[in-house]
């Protein structure tokens, strides 16, 4: 039933209750706690790489952990910012981070093109499946926490928020796995890590928007 405007205003005023403004710092805190939690659980359950435990990680490990952390933060912060809409606010920084991260699969493709015979060994499918399993299970937890927080927001672009949530969850989930991951070759990282983040992003795009409907 459509009310006339004065009746709508009366009804809305009658329904007024004090509200606490949505605070992005709460969303950021929740996301970081969830990311830390899955990292601790993954480290406890599967162990941490010996070089990390010894305090002298392999350069590739530093590179992948730093990249995943950066992508998770950039996309997670953009998703959280979308909870408070406003015309004229640019949230495109995450796209540059994502473009930078794509160097990994690109480097993997180049390596595969030059060393075709070594690809099967470098891909290590058994480890790869474990990578997907652990990364995506962790991503599910981070993505779930982020989505619960985002539901109080007012995203005016739920599709993009879905992509961002999936990318953030996938990055933090893969970060948790990367603490344990024994592989350091670019083919493995470029293929399996990209697959884990990509699947999480697709899942975010499919699952999150209907949950943000308002």
């Amino acid at each position, binding site marked *: 039933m459509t009310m006339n405007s004065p009746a*709508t205003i009366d009804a809305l005023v009658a329904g007024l209750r004090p*509200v606490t*403004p949505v605070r992005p710092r709460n969303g950021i805190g929740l996301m970081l706690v969830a990311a830390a939690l899955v990292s601790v659980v993954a480290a406890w359950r599967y162990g941490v790489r010996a070089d990390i435990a010894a305090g002298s990680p392999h350069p590739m490990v530093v590179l992948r952990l730093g990249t995943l952390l950066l992508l998770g933060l950039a996309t997670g912060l953009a998703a959280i910012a979308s909870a408070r809409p*406003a*015309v004229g606010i640019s949230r495109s920084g995450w796209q540059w981070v994502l473009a930078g991260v794509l160097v990994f699969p690109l480097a993997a493709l180049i390596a595969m093109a030059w060393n075709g015979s070594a690809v099967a060994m470098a891909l290590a499918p058994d480890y790869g499946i474990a990578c997907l399993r652990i990364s995506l299970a962790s991503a599910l937890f981070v993505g779930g926490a982020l989505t619960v927080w985002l539901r109080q927001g*007012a995203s*005016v*672009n739920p*599709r993009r928020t879905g992509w961002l949530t999936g990318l953030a969850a996938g990055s933090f989930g893969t970060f948790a796995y990367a603490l344990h991951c024994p592989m350091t070759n670019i083919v493995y990282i470029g293929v399996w890590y990209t697959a884990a983040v990509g699947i999480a992003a697709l899942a975010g795009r499919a699952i999150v928007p209907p949950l943000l409907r308002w």
Partner: protein
Amino acid sequence: MRTSDSDLAQLMARAQAGDAASYRALLTACQTWLARYYRGRIAPHMIDDLVQDTMISMHAKRATFDPDRAFLPWLAAIARFRWIDQLRRGYRADETELPDTLSVGPHDDEVGARIGIGRLLALLPNGQAEVLRLIKIEGLSVAEASAATGQSESLVKVNVHRGLKRLASLCESE
């Protein structure tokens, strides 16, 4: 007399704290602003419903307003979101049941120009903006829009679909 953005922001901040009088004043000002915002951007007989839908959304999501920020860009983002939603629903529901009244009057005022709907439409490719304007705002049928633009009927439908999708992605663009 028009209420300034900072006045509206203060009213909303008080409304968030539960002040009913401030909220009533805010809603009354928003109702006028929204009616002007939508004028010429949707069939005239739909404006009242769209204004009310937007006010209901604004009520439901009032906690997402940050009192330290400007008010109208926040309201405009919600207004655009609701407008696009209305265009999308209208296209699905009554493609052949088109409004026969039309007045594409003066658009956004000086405050609204930066955050107005006209600005949003200007970001679309001409072919998409043109058919959206003809079908969704002026109420022409697909066949009439096709004749008016020289686009085939299938291209008109594709452009309406793509235009709505693109509008949704540009909701917060200036």
